[in-house]
């Protein structure tokens, strides 16, 4: 009799060892690392769902690629040749319309029509050029700064009178992919997952009996500066000058081009925002970090307020930190931060 109980207890421990709560897979898509973590599903269910998500990421990567064969490249070619681009594809219409709205709301700090400027700075390549472009070229492109509003989008066709438009949805695609991933996981009844596309993260549900926790990269060290709890449905996005950049003569040139100057914005090291759940929160957490990174220091606070960003943290070029009071309440520092270096908004 006693042995039976003992055996039962032993079996309980054995099953405990083999229960795999977490399924985590990584891939290399969008020119960066993508990672999907699923909690509390069987291996088969998780594998299947992750595969569907990665397939969607690959589709979007090929669909929206700024400089390789894609619908974006086709539209750019048509605009360059002053032709009308005709398509039955409704997805691209809604994407471009959303981008038009976003340029307006962000006062042009987010401008996906400036592909020519980004290309001139050498960021249209898997390995970046390591030289500064000719300043005449940059000034010239900046003077003729194109806008999304100059694109006519009607059901069935797209055209523009402005030849200088070159679409680059690099600041939009990853966020859009986050929202698509959420849709796919919802459809497959996956309730608890964490999706990370090149640092932009969306949390679905929870990690068992606790919320998901994400680390925030220190822009100048190979470690995390802080961590933050993501409630179900929340997303986090960062724009930083430490992933895509080059350095010439001790000057750092990042991929975040200020449309107002034509030059890489250099007042910040990183801008991180946290976004509550909405239908497009993945997209917005990706897109809205750019205006906060690029805008001059004195405008950042008002811009955040106007865009409805209640949770943000900006590491300025000199290492000082601007943080919203909402964010300060949620953040857990991993480093000792001097209070003198923090400005709370």
């Amino acid at each position, binding site marked *: 009799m006693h042995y039976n109980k003992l055996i039962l207890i032993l079996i309980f421990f054995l099953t405990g060892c083999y229960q795999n709560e977490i399924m985590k897979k990584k891939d290399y898509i969008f020119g960066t690392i993508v990672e999907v*973590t699923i909690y509390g599903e069987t291996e088969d269910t998780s594998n299947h769902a992750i595969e569907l998500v990665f397939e969607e990421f690959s589709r979007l990567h090929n669909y929206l690629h700024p400089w390789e064969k894609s619908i974006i490249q086709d539209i750019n070619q048509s605009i360059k040749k002053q032709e009308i681009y005709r398509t039955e594809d409704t997805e691209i219409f809604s994407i471009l319309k959303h981008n038009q709205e976003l340029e307006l709301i962000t006062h042009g700090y987010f401008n996906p029509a400036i592909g020519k400027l980004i290309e001139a700075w050498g960021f249209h390549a898997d390995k970046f050029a390591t030289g500064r472009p000719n300043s005449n070229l940059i000034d010239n492109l900046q003077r003729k700064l194109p806008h999304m509003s100059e694109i006519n989008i009607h059901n069935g066709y797209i055209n523009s009178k402005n030849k200088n438009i070159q679409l680059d949805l690099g600041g939009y695609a990853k966020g859009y992919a986050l929202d698509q991933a959420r849709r796919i996981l919802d459809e497959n009844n996956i309730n608890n997952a964490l999706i990370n596309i090149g*640092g932009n993260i969306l949390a679905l549900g929870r990690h068992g009996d606790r919320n998901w926790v994400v*680390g925030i990269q220190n822009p100048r060290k190979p470690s*995390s500066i802080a961590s933050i709890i993501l409630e179900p449905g929340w997303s986090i996005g960062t724009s930083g000058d430490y*992933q895509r950049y080059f350095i010439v003569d001790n000057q750092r040139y990042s991929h975040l081009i200020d449309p107002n100057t034509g030059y890489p914005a250099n007042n910040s090291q990183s801008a991180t925002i946290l976004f509550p759940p909405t239908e497009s929160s993945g997209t917005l957490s990706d897109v809205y970090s750019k205006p906060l990174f690029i805008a001059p220091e004195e405008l950042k606070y008002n811009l955040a307020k106007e865009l409805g960003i209640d949770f943000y943290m900006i590491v300025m070029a000199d290492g000082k930190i601007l943080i919203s009071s909402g964010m300060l309440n949620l953040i857990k520092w991993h480093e000792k931060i001097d209070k003198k270096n923090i400005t709370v908004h």
Partner: protein
Amino acid sequence: MKKLIKKISQFIKKILIGDLFIIFIFIVLTGYLSSILWNFPQGEYLKIQMGKQEIGSFSLNQNLTKIIEGPIGKTEVIIESGKVRISKSPCTKKYCIYQGWINQLNQIIVCVPNQISISIIGNQSDYDSLNY
């Protein structure tokens, strides 16, 4: 209770050297198998330290050879397909090299003469994923 103790002592008297041998082998085998089959959490980064100074953290998802200058010479660390070892060391006993590959969370190799320690860290304890 007394009955049980009596039974156990009778049982122990019956054990022969051969039985002890089998029990010993059984314990060793259990320990060995559980150490290799148990699901230890995998690490994600290698942290290298020289004395008090932190040299840095390096992702295990790469192939990398790192040479660290210590007080008595150069130590060579190799990261290869998710695991790490010390391949060259100026120390005399070479214990650090004999430890071979490590790949699991919190495993450490220390080379005392050259004041170098390499340890595997993960992000499991602090966070689930990294925003960058």
